[in-house]
């Protein structure tokens, strides 16, 4: 484009260097998703579900423990009131 003297070694070398290449794979064949992705997704799902179940289990145990504590407190208060009532009745 810049005159005959400009169609020189550099332009020739550029044509050679930038020649089209055959791609390393055929794009007409759909690529399967790499297996590790599927495994990673499955592991993540198991982890999330496992953590979810574990957390529910923990919450259940915690609720039972708090209920038992409430019963114990209530029972000790009741016995203290009963003792006071016995004092008054004497």
């Amino acid at each position: 484009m810049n005159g005959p003297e400009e169609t020189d070694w550099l332009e020739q070398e550029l044509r050679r260097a930038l020649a089209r290449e055959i791609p390393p794979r055929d794009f007409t064949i759909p690529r399967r998703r790499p297996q590790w992705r599927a495994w990673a997704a499955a592991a993540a799902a198991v982890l999330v579900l496992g953590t979810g179940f574990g957390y529910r289990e923990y919450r259940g145990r915690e609720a039972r423990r708090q209920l038992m504590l409430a019963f114990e407190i209530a029972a000790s208060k009741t016995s203290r009131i009963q003792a006071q009532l016995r004092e008054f009745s004497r």
Partner: protein
Amino acid sequence: MTAIVPLETVGMDFNRLVKEHQAMVYSVAWHFLRDRPLAEEVAQDVFLSLHRNLATIESPRHATAWLRKVAVQRAIDAGRRRKRQPRIGLEEVPEPVTFDPRYDPWLGESLRRMVASLPEAQRMVVILRYQEELEPTEIAGVLEMPVATVKSHLHRALALLREKMERRGLGER
């Protein structure tokens, strides 16, 4: 208004288009990005887009122009997304290990690396000019820029490449 004729009816189908143009699409991305996995990703993306837009393609000639334009756009986008990663500068291109530049087996590779280190617009203009053998007016159409700008990019890119090649002893034989 011209009716759009599906490509299948003019003897072209998706697989044939891919087979015919995959070297062009892949090479535009590869020469621009210098990253084979990323170039493959870009090519895959371009053909996925072609599949989605197949009904709008009017002729084999239209398919070629459409694929070239989308490949150029996707390669530029991928290059911009990757920009936070360090790029190879012209000064970082290793000196070729050879005593006689006339028989330098690394000349093509050195040149490709130098092209890859050009500024974005210059790089794509050089690729379209020397890989795709497009005229400046055609390049202007693909890149949506004035012809004068294309010529200016090309002129600057060639001057820069020539200077660097000569400085490395890879000049005119």
